[in-house]
Every structure is written in structure tokens, then in C-alpha cells.
């Protein structure tokens, strides 16, 4: 099946929506929601459309309806701006609560959200070990087998028949995985950028590029520099 991968002996599935699904644990992992990024930028003068939080939650709701997770791990940077998120409109707060109801929900701390908004519910922790896997926001440059992280918003470009295509992607070398950013206003950073250097074994690295309906597994050496 497209998007299946092995991380330290656990079978995980990269979903075209950008989340990762751990079927054995009925666990859904999602990174970098950046809720209320629009409102945060508006406060600084860029009046970009205020619909990003609703859009992000709607996409998350869709994938949760489909997969019906028992556990959800949000890998940090779930809330873009501590101050602005405190004013998360009631209707959105309710929608988020609705998603959290009936699941074991864990917020991992990120650099944007060292603390979650008060009264949002769920568990909160800096990092979480679960079986052989270790969930944290920022990948740790040292050897960390089983690390599952976000923060870097990976994307990959690949050239096919003279055409360069770029997509968000998950990146995994069998020992570590970095998830794509899920939020509506989150961009991507090319896996070839220096910031990814040393995190993966180049020979075993694969990019799981998010297509419209499926996930495309592309070998590390095929990933282009541009874009």
C-alpha cells in the first residue's frame, strides 16, 4: 500500500492528507497545525484571509472521520501564536473540542507554543516515548532511533521528464521520521536545505510526497535541489 513505511520495526502509514497513521495503536500523528497563524499575522498588519484555522480543522476532521483514531499526537507548533490563540474564537474552540472528544489527545510543546492555550484540554508534554518511538517537536541532531518529529516542514521536488514537481512530504530513513506541516498556512522547506543535513542516512532516506489522492515514495537521491 502506498505510503507504508517501517520505523524501528513499527508499520506506519503516511496519509495523503499529511498526517501519519499508526494502525496497530490506532494512533494519528499530526505536525505543525499552526492554528490562528492568519490572525497572528493580521495583528502585525498582514490582513490575510482569516479562514485558515477553520480550514485546518476541517481537514483534520475529515481525516479523523476516515481513520477514527483512539489517540492523537500533535507534534508541536499546534498554535502559531501564544497570545493570539488565547483569543481563539469560541466557535473554533468548540470545533477543536469536538475533535478531541473521545480520543486520548497529546499536545507536544513546540517553539511557537511552549504552553497550550489555557483550558484547551488534552495532555501536554515536552516529549513522549511510546513503544520504540519517541515523539518530539524538533528533531535532535544526535542519533535518535525511533524519533518522530515535525518543526522543519519538509518538502521535496522531483524532476520527471523535464518537469519539476514539488510537494510537501514526510521524510524517513527507517530510523527517524519527520512529518510535513499540516496547517493551511504552512509552507515547505526543501529536504536538500542544509538544515536537514545529518538527520538522515542518505542511502536509506525516502521522501513520501503528498499527491492529490495518494502518497508517492521517492528515493532520496532523486530529490531535486530546486524549489
Amino acid at each position: 500500500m502506498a505510503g507504508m513505511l517501517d520505523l524501528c520495526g513499527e508499520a506506519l502509514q503516511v496519509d495523503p492528507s499529511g498526517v501519519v497513521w499508526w494502525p496497530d495503536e490506532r494512533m494519528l500523528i499530526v505536525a505543525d497545525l499552526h492554528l490562528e497563524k492568519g490572525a497572528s499575522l493580521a495583528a502585525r498588519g498582514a490582513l490575510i484571509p482569516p479562514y485558515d484555522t477553520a480550514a485546518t480543522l476541517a481537514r483534520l476532521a475529515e481525516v479523523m472521520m476516515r481513520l477514527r483514531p483512539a489517540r492523537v499526537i500533535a507534534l508541536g507548533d499546534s498554535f502559531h501564536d501564544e497570545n493570539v490563540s488565547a483569543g481563539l474564537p469560541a466557535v473554533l474552540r468548540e470545533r477543536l473540542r469536538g475533535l478531541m472528544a473521545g480520543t486520548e489527545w497529546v499536545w507536544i510543546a513546540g517553539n511557537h507554543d511552549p504552553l497550550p492555550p489555557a483550558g484547551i484540554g488534552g495532555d501536554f508534554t515536552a516529549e513522549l516515548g511510546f513503544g520504540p518511538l519517541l515523539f518530539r517537536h524538533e528533531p535532535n541532531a544526535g542519533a535518535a532511533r525511533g524519533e518522530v518529529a515535525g518543526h522543519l516542514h519538509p518538502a521535496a521536488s522531483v524532476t520527471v521528464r523535464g518537469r519539476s514537481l514539488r510537494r510537501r512530504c514526510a521524510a524517513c530513513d527507517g530510523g527517524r521520521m519527520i512529518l510535513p506541516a499540516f496547517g493551511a498556512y504552512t509552507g515547505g522547506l526543501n529536504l536538500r536545505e542544509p538544515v536537514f543535513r545529518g538527520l538522515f542516512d542518505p542511502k536509506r532516506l525516502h521522501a513520501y510526497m503528498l499527491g492529490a489522492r495518494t502518497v508517492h515514495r521517492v528515493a532520496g537521491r532523486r530529490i531535486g535541489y530546486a524549489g
Partner: protein
Amino acid sequence: MNIEPAPVTSDLPPIFADWFAARGWSPRRHQLDLLAARERGSSVLLIAPTGAGKTLAGFLPSLIDIHARGSRPAVERSESPLRDLMAAGDTKAALEAMREARKNPSRLHTLYISPLKALAVDIARNLETPVAEMGLDIRVETRTGDTGSAKRQRQKSDPPDILLTTPEQIALLIASKEAEELFASLKTVVLDELHALVTSKRGDLLALGLARLRALAPGLRTVGLSATVADPDALRRYLVPQPSDGEALSDLVMADPGASPDVTILASDERVPWSGHTTRYAIKDIYRLIGENNLTLVFVNTRSQAEMTFQELWAVNDEALPIALHHGSLDAGQRRKVEAAMAAGSLRAVVCTSTLDLGIDWGDVDQVIHVGAPKGASRLAQRIGRANHRLNEPSRAVLVPSNRFEVMECRAAVAALAEGAQDTPPLMPGGLDVLCQHILGCAVGSPFNADKLFSEVTSAAPYAHLNRETFDRALDFVATGGYALRAYERHARIRKRNDGKWRVANPRVAQTYRLNVGTIVEEAMLKVRLVKAGRKTPRGGMWLGEIEEWFVSQMEPCDTFIFGGHVLSLVGIRETEVYVSKTVSRDPKIPSYMGGKFPLSTYLAERVRDMVADPKQWKLMGPQVAEWLRLQALRSVNPARDQLLVETFPRAGRNYLVCYPFDGRLCHQTLGMLLTRRLERMGARPMGFVASEYALAVWGLGDLSLLIETGRIRLGDLFDEDMLGDDLEAWLDESSLFKRTFRACATIAGLIERRHPGKEKTGRQMTVSSDLIYDVLRTHEPDHILMQATRNDARTGQLDIGRLGAMLSRTRGRIVHKALDRVSPLAVPVLLDIGREFIAGEANEELLAEAADDLIREAME
């Protein structure tokens, strides 16, 4: 042609008459006509060919006016007493004198606005001669993006008599606190190269700026200088305020057209290629022509063509003729060097793009060679006018078609030139994004009343038909983003105060506005740096210039391409820099040809269709093209000029459908997107398509001939105009061209900031990518004013939907189908483009799958 009677009533003042006499000149009729217009106080459009003394005609009335007014502004006169008082330590009296001087500091009489800052600088230099020779006490200065901040500041407090500048600087001046004072004395605005300005968003911004200037300086007169255009009345409307009921026109002066140009099409002994744009076959002929003349301008349509032609010319340059290269991506210093060498007469040829289109005199050009398709008759006439800036001698030009279709296009252009036919594009309604920028600019300048601003805006011709509801939505956008979900009231950029006037909410808004003014949204550009080959982590390196990001994004390290006349090898990309090394490769791989910015004009297209249909005209195009069209008649059919020929045939396991609308690549590309959707629904399993300027080819797995013959696909339905409804909407979802249009609109309107105070950001470094904003906005508020602005632009710009609509209605009921057993002669060029052009459309997903599949194959082998 409609020529206003303009009796010569003005006698030149003695000092001017003497100057003309001393040079053995007499003023030309149109120069006197412009003086007469000044006496009547009328705004006027002057249409004159290159070399007619257009600029002097434009300035002469102002020079006479300022001379008569008596010169030297109050400030200057008061300056030396001021200095004396300061020296004497009498600061109180000095301050008093300064205050007195400030009361009426402005003596700004004339603004000259040009689309190019280089042109403004050049004109300033040219004006100095008559001003000095007549001993006029007139100060002439330029103000461009390059003008230092101290000088800019001084120009506001102590302006010159004549200020030469660009549309962006006008917008900035209007948005300054001093605007009211500065422009109070303004009498005349001279708009140079008006034909080039009005068809862009810069023209919209300037139109709004003019409306503001008229409010600040009642009685303001405009003088438009233009090359010959198809619809002079559109430009005449542009020059004067439009009443709310009906139209107003400026006066019109037509100069004598001058000698008609001597244009020929290159007769080469070589074989003219079927397709492609390299024109490699004609290089030796071009080189020979350069050798026979003193200074040749070799015009091409795109940067990559310029690079290619330059490279090829040097490869055959046995006599080491000084041949240079000039295009917009080269480092500005390098361009200045080429221009200076041209002026000094030390060059024999310059290969250039549209960067040398507009009227700067760089030297005695005696021949223009136009490589590739002319695209439009008027544009060609303007380029040809670059040869011989003397009115009474014919310009000499040689057209070099790069393929067989272009032979027809060149022939059509030569015929159009002989008839003096014009095909400049029609003026479009003003952009809503530009309106948003202008509204913010007005607020930055001084608080405004919405009702007054609305009537001011609608007095500008491009916005004459703007309705109040749309204006209010633009205003709402500027204030709070204009979203139905009113989430940003507390972050408003402008607010309505108790006095009913709108003003900026905080100084940061004004600062950001000033940094982002203008309508030129650059493609994301990367800096090209030359490093040594084989470096693992390149850095530093000599700066060669800038290159479009899309161009580089198609390449892999070690791929070779031409830039700045060198064959370079890509080393790597880091953030906004491209590292390259020199290579000895003689065969650079050229990534996909993007085509020119200008599509084939509808006028030329019509003539080309006519030629294809009429066997009598074939022999005019030389034996090769005539033979090709004869073969087409034999194997298939040559469509009549109002017909659309559709051919279907099998080839190499695929089935092809090729049609020939001759409506330009943009229009065909949009048609291709929509046709593949429909063919998919009709069960023809289309796999891809490729569009050229003349034709569109779609291929797929289904037997198209059979599907059409059995009536499963009806061509009338396939090409029905209703494809511009739902199919278009659905396709826009995914169209990267549409997203690019949105990016431009969002940037101009001020939703996306190109530059923030304190730090500059470009291209993909922008805070939130415009694609993501587009996706969110399209889902949640598809009727937002920026979506509307984007749709309006798409209609005419990147997608050419307007032209597609006209084509579909023109050919309704006139589709001729030919089911063939193999490719037809006419279809060969477009099929050869496959693999050279982007294969656009939904194929992207399949391509991604292919990348993954390749891998599986590799793994299994």
C-alpha cells in the same frame, strides 16, 4: 483618421526663434500645433513616429511657459539672505525667512513621466542642451528609484521647474505629506511612450495618480507622446478627466508619418525548420548582414533566444566583430557598458530583447534584424523605428523567421506595415488590485472623503465604469481585508474618523506602503554566482546577474545552460542564490522554452489564416513553405479563413487530435486544458497536450477518429462555448497560471508585502505563500475582491480567456474534421514541440506516480 484642426497661431518668443534659426532649423508643424494647444489650455495627444522630434515638441510649450513666468523659485532667491542671516548669528530672522520661503516654495511647473528610468535620465541630458544654449534659467532634475534620499527630500521642499520621473515616483509623491504644496503650482504633465504605459497596470496606477494631480492642481494640462496606435481615442480619453455621463477626448495632433520602412524577409539558402525558435539555420546570413552595416540591432523575443543567438553569432564570428548582448536579466552595470559602447560607436551589433524597445537614442543604428516572429504589426513598426532616427530616411529592417509558420507571420507583418495597419492591444478596464493600492496611497498622503475619492477615481478613464459597490469593497479591503468574516476590525489599516475622513491607523502602515508601491511584480529571481567547479559547498563567487526561479527549477546539478553569453553548469542552489561554474560543453541543454510574453496579435492571426486558405499567396512565401502548404492540401485540407480544421490520426500507438485556431499559445493552452477535461468525460482517455502559437495537439489512448465518426464525440459539443462555464471554473482550481495571477494581484493590492520595514523579502520567502492564501480564499470566499481582480486579469492575461471565447464563437458551425491515417504536414511543427514544451494539465499526478514507479523498477531489476 481624425485630425483636430490646430491652426498655427503661436509665434515663438524671440529667444526660441533665434535658437531654432541659429541651428538652421525651423519648428515642425506638430511642434507648433502643440504650442497652439498650450495657448488654448488643452490637453493633447501627439502621435509621431520615432525621430520626429517628439520629445522637444512635448517640452517646448513648458520651456516657453517657464521662461515667460520668470524663473527662480522663492526659496532659491531667499537662500543667500538666509545664509547671510545664519552667518550673522541671527537665527530668529533666519527661521522667519525660511518660514516665509516655505509659504510658497513650489515652482514645479512640469512633470515628465516615462516608463523607463533610463529614459528619464536620457531626456534630462537632452534637455540640458537647449536650456543651456538659450541661457534659460530653468532647473531640470530627475527622480527615480536610484535618486538618493537627501536629494529626494530636497526635491520636495525645493522642487525644480521640470521634474523627470516614473509612475512609481508619482505614486510615492502623492502619498507624501508635501503633495498638496508641491503640486499646487503644477501646470503640465508630459507622458512619454504613452502607448507602452497604458496597456499595463502601471498605466492604471498612473491614471489614478493623474486624477489625484488634477485635484491638487486644478487646470492641469496633459501632453501624451505616443507611437502610432490602433485606437488613438482610447489614449485621448486617458489624458483628460472623464465626466460621469459620457466621454471626453483630448486634442489630437498627428505628425507626418515619415518615410515608410524598407522591410524584407531573409531569403536564406538554408532549409527553414519545421518548428522551434532557435533560428540557428540563419546565423551565417545574420552575421553577413551585420558585416554589411555599421550598427545593427538584433531583436529577439525572449532572454533565452537572446543568449542563444549571441552564442551562435560568436561561434561564426571569424572577423571578431564587436557584438554585444543586452537583456533585462544582466547586471545593470554590464547593460550600461553596452549602452555606452553603442553610443560611442564602438559596436557593430547588439543582440537585445524588449529592453531596447523604447525610445532611447543609443547611437546610429542603421539596420534592425528581427529574429523570430514579430507577433504584432505595431510592435514590429516600433522596433524597426529604432533604425535611423532621422525622419525622412526609411528605416531598414530584415525579418528572420525561425520556422515555417513564422514565415507566414512575417509575411503578414510586412503586408500590414505596407498598409500602415495597427494592432496595438485595446485598453482594458483598470485593475482592482491597483485601485486598492491607490486608495491606501491616498490615505497615506492625507485623510480622504470616500465620496470625493470615488468621483476622482471614476474621472480616470480606466476606472470610468467602476461602480460604487466595487469601490466600496476595495475600500473595505484596504481597511480590514474585506472578508465576510469580519475578524480584523481591530487590526484595520485605515479607519474612518469622526469627521468622515479615512486616515491611516498607524505609521507602520504608511511605511509599508512606501516600501511596496508599484505594480511590477517580478518573477521570483535568483542571483547567479560563478564559482569553481567541483566545490562541495559553494559560496561567494562573482555575481553574473539574475535568473528566473522557474527556469532554474527545471534543472539538476551538472545541467548546462547559457547565461550572459557563457555556457554554464549548475553547481547548486542555496536559498536565493544559484551557483554555476564555467564549462567547456558546446551543447547546452535549454530547459523548456517559455515563449514570449506577447501572443500573436489577432490581426496578424487573421492574415495568416487568410494565407493558409489562399493558394495564390503561397508562392510569396518561398518554395519551401509553398510546397508544405501544397502537400497539406493534398494530404488533408487547408481550412478557409473562418473555419476551424480539426485533424485526427494515429501515430506510434497513440491517437492525436490537432486543431489550428492560430490564436496564440496562451489561448491554445487554456483550450488544451478544457478540451482534455471534456475528452476525458467523453471517454477518449486523453493523456496530454501541447500548444503552439498556431495549433493545439491533444493525444490519448481512445481512437478519436472512430469516436468522432460514430458520433460518440460531436465536435460541435466538444468546442462549444459552454466550456467557459463550469469546466473553466473547475479547472481554475488547479491552474498554476491562475495562482501566479493571484500572486501578482495580491501583491499589488497589498495583501502580500514584497518588502517589510527593516528587512526585505522576495519570492518564496514571503510569510505565507500566495498559493496557500489562494487555496483558503477560494474555498471560503470565492467572491472576494482579489478573486474578482484575478479573474479579470486571467480573462485577458495569462489565460487569454477572452480570446478563446472569441475563437469559439467565430468557428461555431464551421468545424471541418479530417480523419487521417497519418500525421498531416501542417501538424508536424506542433508535434515536434512535444518534449520541448511543458506538457501541462493534470498529467502532474501521473508524472509523480511515474517517479515512484521508476524507483520500483530500479529496485526490482
